[in-house]
């Protein structure tokens, strides 16, 4: 916290770069070639890449900047990489999207919103002040409201957008109210300071609970945990595929980053680091473990069960992403660094497989003009490579070897077993069995249903390359996951906690 404001600017260079490119991207709209599809996309890509360079310079940085508002530490670094990779991929997806052609006059706005959402996500990952948390959350939210309704000629997108905005604004309102109560109780907005107040233990538990539950509504909505998940399927279905994909990774990851940081910094008894390394000791009074465990079970079970009945691919993936939120929450239940590192691992896997799946959905929507699962009939014969790729992604989502999804789940369950949450582990694995059913349903349509028309549709070299790029790590990282694991383990470090 020794950073002055001036010095602090040195630590937000990536965000600054992104902001600059946000403006540059917007400006491309004015640069004469208003209809150009590629210029704004290129600008956005460039922005992500340049920001990436600066992010990479931050390896190992562990600082709290802007008077304790914002933490630049390995933990946020991890998420920043996730956001950047997602951003880059989404931009590439968007270039290929036919859906967005309907709004071809607004590419610049579209890409700048993507950048702005990413900036918000950056800040969410590092926010260590309640105000900062709220503001960054809103930045992400507002960007996503617009993005989800971006194809505004499409009524579905409009509907998604209005639902999202009402639901989101309401949830963040609840969260803000919760923050206000917390502020009233403690007089602090900085979560490090909150920690000390909690440590003193002189608070009304009931009021704290009210505040925390209200805050949970806001956080839960961002990560789409039951019962705050309701917007998810509608928005994912209505929004353009690229946006759904973007939301499903960046927005969710940012939410998780914030959740984890908030919990870990505010509620851990730092003074009582136990003998067993990595175990957290939570202040007495609130049984976080149980709340989160219950949320986790509800989330994954509901997500999986409802997904069984979906016929729209995007909606299916929406429920699947809800279920994955449930799996991820399991990591938090353990209240150990190991659980967190498992979650981080899972994010890598989730990024790869979920984006992959959405990508294919987009490709299929482009060529076959369908989002229905039945529309995938015989895809394995018509476009074998696409079908193969989707199969890999879906099995990865299920968590079956030889895919990276398996390693992700493995480490989550390992963390649970380690901390003797056997029952939760069993619920988790049973859920993954249930999930197999609907993932395989898609595979079934692709391969087991013979198409009437077997004429081949090839997607071209670029697309195939893109699929390969997404697919290869899905398998390769299963065979050799040391780097990811190592990265995840290093990334558990947050500022102020050793």
């Amino acid at each position, binding site marked *: 916290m020794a950073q002055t404001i001036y010095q602090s600017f040195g630590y937000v260079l990536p965000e600054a770069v992104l902001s600059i490119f946000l403006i540059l991207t917007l400006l491309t709209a004015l640069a004469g070639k208003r209809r150009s599809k590629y210029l704004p996309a290129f600008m956005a890509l460039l922005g992500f890449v340049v920001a990436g360079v600066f992010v990479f310079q931050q390896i190992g940085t562990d600082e709290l900047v802007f008077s304790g508002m914002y933490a630049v530490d390995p933990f946020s670094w991890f998420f920043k990489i996730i956001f950047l990779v997602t951003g880059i991929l989404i931009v590439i997806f968007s270039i290929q999207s036919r859906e967005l052609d309907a709004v071809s006059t607004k590419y610049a706005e579209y890409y700048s919103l993507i950048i702005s959402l990413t900036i918000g996500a950056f800040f969410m990952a590092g926010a260590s002040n309640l105000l900062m948390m709220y503001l960054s959350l809103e930045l992400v939210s507002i960007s996503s409201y617009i993005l989800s309704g971006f194809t505004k000629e499409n009524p579905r997108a409009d509907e998604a957008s209005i639902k999202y905005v009402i*639901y989101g604004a309401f949830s963040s309102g*609840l969260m803000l109210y919760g923050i206000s109560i917390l502020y009233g109780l403690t007089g602090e907005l900085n979560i490090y300071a909150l920690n000390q107040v909690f440590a003193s233990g002189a608070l009304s538990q009931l009021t704290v609970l009210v505040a925390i539950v209200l805050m*949970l509504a806001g956080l839960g*909505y961002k990560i789409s945990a039951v019962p705050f998940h*309701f917007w998810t399927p509608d928005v994912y279905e209505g929004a353009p595929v690229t946006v759904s994909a973007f939301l499903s990774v960046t927005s969710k990851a940012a939410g998780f980053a914030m959740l984890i940081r908030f919990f870990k910094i505010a509620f851990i008894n730092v003074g009582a680091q136990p003998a067993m390394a990595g175990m957290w000791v939570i202040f007495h009074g609130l049984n976080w473990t149980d709340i989160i465990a219950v949320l986790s079970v509800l989330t994954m079970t509901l997500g999986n*069960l*409802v997904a069984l*009945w979906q016929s729209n691919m995007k909606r299916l993936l929406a429920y699947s992403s809800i279920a994955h939120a449930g799996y991820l929450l399991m990591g938090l239940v353990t209240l150990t660094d190991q659980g967190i590192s498992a979650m981080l691992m899972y994010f890598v896997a989730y990024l790869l497989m979920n984006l992959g799946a959405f990508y294919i959905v987009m490709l299929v929507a482009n060529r076959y003009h369908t989002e229905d699962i039945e529309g995938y009939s015989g895809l394995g014969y018509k476009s074998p490579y696409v079908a193969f790729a989707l199969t890999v992604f879906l099995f990865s989502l299920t968590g079956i070897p030889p895919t990276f999804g398996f390693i992700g789940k493995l480490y989550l369950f390992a963390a649970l077993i380690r901390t003797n949450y056997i029952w939760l582990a069993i619920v988790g694995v049973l859920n993954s069995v249930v999930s197999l059913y609907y993932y395989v349903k898609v595979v079934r349509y692709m391969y087991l249903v013979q198409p009437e028309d077997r004429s081949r549709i090839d997607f071209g070299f670029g697309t195939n390359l893109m699929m390969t790029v997404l697919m290869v790590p899905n398998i390769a990282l299963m065979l050799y996951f040391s780097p990811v694991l190592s990265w995840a383990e290093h990334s558990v470090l947050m500022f102020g906690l050793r």
Partner: protein
Amino acid sequence: MAPIETTLIQLALTVLLLPLAGFVLLIFFGKRIRRQDLIETGLLFVALAISIYIMVQKVFFISAPQIDFTFRWLDLGGMIGRPGFTIDLGIAIDNIAAIMLVVVTLISALVHTFSLGYMQGDVRYSRYYAYLGLFSFSMLGIVLSNNLLLMYVFWELVGISSYLLIGHWYEKKSASDAGKKAFIVNRIGDFGFFIGIMIVFTQLHTFLFSGIFSGIAQGQLSGPLLTAAGILIFCGAVGKSAQFPLHVWLPDAMEGPTPVSALIHAATMVAAGVYLIARVFPMLTAEALTLIAYTGAITAFISATIAVTQNDIKKVLAYSTISQLGYMVMGLGVDAYSAGFFHLVTHAAFKAGLFLASGSVIYAMHHEQDMRQMGGLRKKMPITYWTFVIFSLSISGIPLTSGFLSKDSILAGALAYGLLSGNYLIPIIGYAVVFLTAMYMFRLIIMTFHGEPRDVHKFEHAKESPKVMTVPLIVLAMLSFFVFYSFNPLNPDKGWLLESVKKPESVVPSYQKYSWDFLHVQLVEKGAEQPGVTGGGDKTINTNPYEMELERIHYTGLELSLFLASLGILTAFLIYHWKKIDAEKLKQRVKPLYNFLYNKWYFDELYGATAVAGTLFLSKTFAWFDGNVIDGAVNGAASLTRVWSSFSGKFDHYIVDGLVNFSAWFTGLLGRGTRRVQTGRVQTYIIFALIGVIVIFYVFKQF
């Protein structure tokens, strides 16, 4: 091992493997070799010659009771402090094995010869010979085996070759049914046999007879378990030797070609059961032996009564076979070991003869088997007729025949046993069956060969069978005379056969023996005075009350049986030849009894209604259960709940299964239910979220 013994073992192995070689040759190259039949037959004659050599050597020149050759077949090793697991197998030649070798190869060779004529032109001629070879191999294996395991192995092989041969004309449903029935019924017996073997092995850790006997002698296996083991092993014999209650397969097995019936279902295979009892005789307790005796007696009686009413020539012979096997089993059961085995040998000859002769008749009558269609064949087929008469006399126990010698030994044993032990029923049945045997045999002869021909057309075409068929008959007829077994036509005790087949010493604990087996008595027989030594010529004879009783009642028994046999023949003539008694009227008068007997005591129906139907019902139920209950979840909840409710009261684990399936179905339901919450209205969502907040709050307030 002396050189001659080594030679004998080698020869025995040769005998064993010759038919197998034939089998392999015919199976793989049957189509390409001409006159395969002669090859196979020739092999059998070679085997016969060797067997005779072995027998003569063993019985007359080698004093050692047994020549044994054992090798380690399996060695699973062991750990320190844990006994190793090994299986030793081998072959052994003792007197009964040597004699059986000859019996088997002889009958087999003759049947091969006979088949040259009988089976000529059959569609699967070479296959037939191949199977005969396989059978001979297996049967010789049983004979030579010195352990229970190998015995069981060959036992099963015999079963399978019997299956193949019964079903030789498998285009006929009845033939394939009969084969199947034979195999399965045998398997039921083998089930017991198998458990018996397991008891023996787990207690004594060996399959070798010698090891088993010495182990029992040392007391490693005794008491009820020993009795159980004996009885269970006997179960195998019950199956194979068609003893009550597993006798039902043998009559059906007559669907096979007649020479097969002669070889397998009269002379050798069915005798394997008896041979098995003889093999394990030392380990049978008194209780087991008593059970065996009763089983034999009951079998003998039931089948004799059935035989009286049957009209199919082969069926009569089949029941007669069962009846005679009952005698043998009874003989062993009543401790008349030698007599039982003796009857096995003599029966082999004359029963094979009977079947071959009937085969000759059937051949002549163009595969007509119903005696009511025959008659008057005496003149047309003199050789067949006369040999048939000789065989019948032999089986009826008329003096000068071999059957007389062996049967009377058994009956005398039964009588002695009955008197000593108080089980009077056994000798009574034994003698009753003598009467019945004589009666049904001569009923058969009269209906077939005497009187007027009933089917004139077939009669016209009937003629004496060719030489290849009659010569075996003549050979067997000769073997039905007493001289081959004993020079004394009335008492076989001093004959070479009984001299060489002595009852082995029982090894069971003495309290489990027949009382007389351990009450030894020493008799001193006055010999010629020798100068200087008092009693120097006296012979001390070890004997026991049983032997003494035998001595005492021998002639009484003999006269009784002779009387009954004559009575039986007389009755047959009275009814069927001279028609002094009207058979039809008699039939009418005792109609229920007649029907009962004619329908074979309704055994097939009984088994059909219970065991077979029960198993099928069970299997259908289980299959249904499998498809609907266990698999119910995926196939629809409706059937599941129905089944669930109907079973819930009865079987606990059905409920558990039901629950498992129910949960799968419920999972789907839950998903369907919860998705209704997603109404599409954002305000509903908000309400749910609020409810969620409130619920979370209230639930966790307590903590």
